[in-house]
């Protein structure tokens, strides 16, 4: 066990993946000399060279489009999209090409591409730097989407994503980059596409991923002081969803609340609520509730504290669910 911030866990995971397979390469804006604007790729170009850590032109569609050709030549590109709100110029290449080429070629072409996107708000950034576009990728057939919430998962999940032969959108909770956590460098990690119960409870189930996991754990602590026992599940994988642990939990607690930063309408919470309703209908003692961002373009940062789900909004939803 060793302690490190989540961002450092990603850096160590990238380093381990590059050491393990010389076809792994990193490409993105400012990932080389600067080490990325969040320093996630810090030191990698120095140690692995300019041909394996490539400072890209300022061109998101170019980053994705050329990565497709690189995979066809046998490389495993790990791409950094500098900020969530800048992924849209690359959207066509991701959804029309990366997601479809394996299917279109009936398996002859594989796309082992990892698209790293620092996502979400809470860091006081200017516009386009705090968005949560994960649902737009999770609803795209042919893509897998994951999100880590702690340093240990950061270290292991990035390596698992890179080792996968399928294209993976890797959502990094940028407001948690600096959070310290224990990393187990030795023990085999949990499977990449598995959700995980982080805190056990008997009264209600909180379901979250990425940046909201910490918020939910803190909410569960606060709820415990009021005598409520809350279970917290970190989804970890957003596509495919691993909901069996969620169903198991909800059948026990009878109360489910999905929490995410992304806007409510057609967000992941909608899908998760629908599936809980399908599978756990007779166990539910309250409707599945959602605590999410509002259906607004991301607001000016001085308003983000109220826009983002926080402790109070989560606790209010817990109370509302338990009151049924």
């Amino acid at each position: 066990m060793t302690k490190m911030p989540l961002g450092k866990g990603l850096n160590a995971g990238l380093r381990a993946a590059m050491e393990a397979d010389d076809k792994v390469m990193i490409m993105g804006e400012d990932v080389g000399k600067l080490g990325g604007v969040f320093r996630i790729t810090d030191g990698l170009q120095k140690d692995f060279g300019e041909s394996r850590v490539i400072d890209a032109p300022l061109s998101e569609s170019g980053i994705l489009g050329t990565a497709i050709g690189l995979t066809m030549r046998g490389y495993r590109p790990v791409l950094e999209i500098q900020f969530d709100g800048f992924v849209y110029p690359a959207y066509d290449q991701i959804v029309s090409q990366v997601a479809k080429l394996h299917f279109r070629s009936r398996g002859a072409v594989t796309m082992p591409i990892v698209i790293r996107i620092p996502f979400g708000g809470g860091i006081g950034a200017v516009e386009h730097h705090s968005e949560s576009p994960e649902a737009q990728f999770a609803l795209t057939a042919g893509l897998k989407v994951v999100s880590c919430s702690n340093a240990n998962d950061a270290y292991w999940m990035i390596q698992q994503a890179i080792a996968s032969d399928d294209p993976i959108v890797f959502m990094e909770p940028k407001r948690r980059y600096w959070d310290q956590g224990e990393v187990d460098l030795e023990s085999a990690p949990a499977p990449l596409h598995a959700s995980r119960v982080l805190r056990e409870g008997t009264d209600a189930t909180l379901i979250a991923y990425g940046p909201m996991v910490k918020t939910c754990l803190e909410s569960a602590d606060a709820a415990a002081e009021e005598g409520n026992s809350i279970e917290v599940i970190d989804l970890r994988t957003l596509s495919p969803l691993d909901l069996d642990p969620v169903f198991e939990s909800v059948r026990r607690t009878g109360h489910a609340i999905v929490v995410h930063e992304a806007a409510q309408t057609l967000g992941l919470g909608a899908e998760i609520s629908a599936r809980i309703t399908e599978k756990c209908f007779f166990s539910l003692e309250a409707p599945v509730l959602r605590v999410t961002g509002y259906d607004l373009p991301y607001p000016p940062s001085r308003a983000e504290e109220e826009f983002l789900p926080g402790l109070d909004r989560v606790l209010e939803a817990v109370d509302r669910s338990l009151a049924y």
Partner: protein
Amino acid sequence: MSVSMPDTYVADDPAGAFPLVQLLTPEGQRVSHDEFSYDGDDDSIRDLFRDLVLSRRIDFEANALQRHGELGLWAPAQGQEAAQIGSGRALRPQDFAFPTYREHGVALCRGVDPALLLGLFRGVELGGWDPAEHGFALYSIVIGAQTLHATGYAMGLNLDGAVGTGDSERDAAVIAYFGDGATSQGSVNEAFDWAAVFNAPVVFFCQNNQYAISASTDRQTRGPIAQRAGGFGFRGIRVDGNDVLACHAVTTAAMQRARDGEGPMLIEAYTYRMGAHTTSDDPTRYRDSAEVETWKLKDPIERVKRYLLVQGTPQEFFDDLDAEAEELGRHLRETCKALPEPDLAELFDEVFVEGTPELAEQKADYLAFRDSLEPEGSAS
């Protein structure tokens, strides 16, 4: 109402800043050029002629199959055979081509069974061949997207050290096909930029066939397409796209330059799509017949035939080729109808390398539903 263009517009002025490289006139006369030459003998020209004739036959048969309801759509390439065969025959086995959806002649050059091109248009496939086996990527329907894929593949060649070693069996390059309409796309301009920045061994081969569906080239650009390259830091050349010898010579030179490690080049093959954009549109609505007649006189196949006849090619050669084209037509017709229908159940397994529980569940649901239906023809 037409929009007036500024005086500097020269895109449709082949005699302007970018004169056409031409080695064989529409009358079938060989002409010389200061920089480029076709070095093959008459036998090799007969080989090119054979490819031109066969690729036109593919087009003819596919159009007919579409009219008979066997294909949902076809993208005709008539008129562009010289651009495709000239460039396609300039490739080596280790090279890689990234086509649009109209590169039927290039596919022929890359050894793809022409019948497999029909799957996409018949609706039984989304691809139809293994790109790695032929060095020929799947058709790309999104305009210009493939130019970035080509550039990335070429960057990979650089990383692999498969460029500039002097080993002619090893050094490789990439060719990216696109049309005049694609030059309006961001992807194509990004591909130009990346290729230049990374000195990628990629030849950009634009078949300027004068129309993007119904919009003529002057709706895409106000300057010659060949001139684009200069702004990105590499060279552009305009070639007579109906002259197979010139297309071959220029592409051969550009590909060799790229294989030698000298980076990208843009070739604008100035040509004309004789037919519709696809079998769904009606070109008489957007261009006049006089224009089509003018281009008929520049036909890429007739000029080679004229040359070969003057050279004394025996009639037997043409008769044999006719028979071969007939046989190809029969192969296309028969294979088209025999292409297997897609099985939806199999497709669930082809989304990912490693399938997901969600897809497995949906497949099981689908199969259960399918099995629950009455078998076809059973009376109740």
